């Protein structure tokens, strides 16, 4: 199969060449931000680091982190580096916890973004001959417009259908012959279920590939959406603080990791507790520095997403590092007897045990000076047996699998369905009773 690139030279640079571009851009960025943004300057001064201290890429670690609160503290435009007359668009994240975060783009930023989104779509085998069905929401959210302009830049035909009105979306897919679906994975499943209700056979559509992102989704969900919609599903990653969709993208050749567009975004993996940069290949919190953004560049932004960087060469020919599918959020991380535990890891064990996504809850207590963890699992019909020994074997297996994966001993309890507390339909995954 032919490999198609959007910007072949930048996507296949040898690492040394890439790093020299990154360093040049980084030094330029740090100097500019130090000069123009008072809050950045204050933080760097407090850390005792000057722009000229950045002599190599490893000097990046000397710069202070930027966190979501920095954006909130400087709401709405306090971290912009250019006068507002040069900002031609703003986006904002929903403010579910406190003030929203606002980001801005110059004309050149929007051109860069469209180019990177076109690059991302090309990774998924999308070409100018495609009919792109864009179900990402249009508005303050970066998804809709970000994907839209990338698809236009690519030269494909864009259907700006946005979210909602699922039946009409299916009619449009049938009548217009949509070949590519851009949506959140949960909306893709919603489309599939509605098709089933309407008796529409996905095989009768022209859909070939789905580019899904903007929310975490598991490998099981990928299989489900691929099967139900009869398409290939690929993962796209982005966040508004860094740019929007198109920060990294899975290629068609591998389903293991998304290529980070490193000529524009410099990734690091850090220990979420100590802030220390971790060696290549280790799992930790993903941190991004933008290298080319004008209006709203960001230095060492802590994404709170847990991932791992993969430096192996990819079959597709791209030399860009890959980031593993985000497996959790640092917000959810628990430290049990010195071990980092993510609810998603427990979920992984449970799914591997019974092949179903079970309802579960982690309960952490401190007995004396010792942390204890219990895992409550709601008994589904698939795992239930009329024989005690089978249920006991099941709890033992889960216990052993968790111990193997995390090195933490826990007690597994089977509980009746619907006994785990839910808020707004979502199960509460963790109860931490420790008073620390």
């Amino acid at each position: 199969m032919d490999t198609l690139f959007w910007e072949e030279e930048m996507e296949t640079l040898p690492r040394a060449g890439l790093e020299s571009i990154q360093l040049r851009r980084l030094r330029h960025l740090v100097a500019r931000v130090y000069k123009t943004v008072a809050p950045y300057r204050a933080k760097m001064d407090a850390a005792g680091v000057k722009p000229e201290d950045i002599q190599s890429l490893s000097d990046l670690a000397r710069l202070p982190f930027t966190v979501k609160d920095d954006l909130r503290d400087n709401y709405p435009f306090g971290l912009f580096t250019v006068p507002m007359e040069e900002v031609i668009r703003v986006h904002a994240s929903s403010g579910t916890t406190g003030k929203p975060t606002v980001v801005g783009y110059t004309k050149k930023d929007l051109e860069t973004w469209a180019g990177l989104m076109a690059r991302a779509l090309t990774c998924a085998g999308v070409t100018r001959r495609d009919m792109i069905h864009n179900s990402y929401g249009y508005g303050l959210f970066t998804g809709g417009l970000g994907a839209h302009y990338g698809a236009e830049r690519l030269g494909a035909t864009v259907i700006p259908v946005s979210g909602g009105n699922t039946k009409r979306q299916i009619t449009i897919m049938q009548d217009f012959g949509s070949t590519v679906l851009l949506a959140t994975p949960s909306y893709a499943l919603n489309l599939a279920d509605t098709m089933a209700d309407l008796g529409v056979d996905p095989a009768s559509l022209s859909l070939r590939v789905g580019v899904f992102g903007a929310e975490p989704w598991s490998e099981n969900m990928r299989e489900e959406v691929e099967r139900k919609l009869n398409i290939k599903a690929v993962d796209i990653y982005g966040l508004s603080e860094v740019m929007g969709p198109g920060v990294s993208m899975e290629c068609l050749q591998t389903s293991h990791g998304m290529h980070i567009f490193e000529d524009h975004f410099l990734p690091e993996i850090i220990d979420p507790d100590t802030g220390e940069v971790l060696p290549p290949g280790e799992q930790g919190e993903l941190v991004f520095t933008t290298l080319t953004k004008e209006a709203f560049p960001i230095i060492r932004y802590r994404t709170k997403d847990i991932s791992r960087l993969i430096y192996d060469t990819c079959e597709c020919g791209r030399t860009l590092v890959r980031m593993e599918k985000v497996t959790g959020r640092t917000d959810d991380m628990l430290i049990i007897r010195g071990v980092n535990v993510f609810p998603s890891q427990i979920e992984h064990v449970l799914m591997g045990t019974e092949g179903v996504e079970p309802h579960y809850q982690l309960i952490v207590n401190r007995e004396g000076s010792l942390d204890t963890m219990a895992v409550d699992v709601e008994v589904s019909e698939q795992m239930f047996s009329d024989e005690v020994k089978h249920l006991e074997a099941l709890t033992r297996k889960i216990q052993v699998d968790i111990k193997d994966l995390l090195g933490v001993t826990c007690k597994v309890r089977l509980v009746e369905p619907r006994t785990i507390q839910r808020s707004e339909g979502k199960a509460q995954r963790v109860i931490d009773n420790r008073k620390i």
Partner: protein
Amino acid sequence: MRVEQIAVFLENKSGRLAEITAALAGAGINIRALSVADTADFGILRLIVDDVARARQVLKDGGFTVGITNVIAVEVDDKSGGLASVLKSIDQAGINVEYMYAFVNKSGENAVLIFRFDDMDRAITALQEGRFSLLSGAQICSL
């Protein structure tokens, strides 16, 4: 000669058993036999009822995890030796008992033993060869 049995998952908390029997009674379902297998952490309630499909639905609607398994019902004289003779022929055939429970029919003359074996097919053959009286689900309900 298999009988359908309903098994229900129970957490060890008080009142659950009463809720289940009340729910079934409310739906007009008759419980012919019942046993609870207990561990420190959970229990499994096993029931023989006159309407398996409806009982299953009632319990599922009530939020319980329900399973249906096949068991074997053997009618013996309610006098000492009935159980022993069954176990003897099962043992001779090299079959293991996973669990068992019993109830006495209304007349009080005969006992009905409910068994789950590790090899149900061979158990049926062995019991038939031993000329034991195996009951069907319908027969149990008409006792």
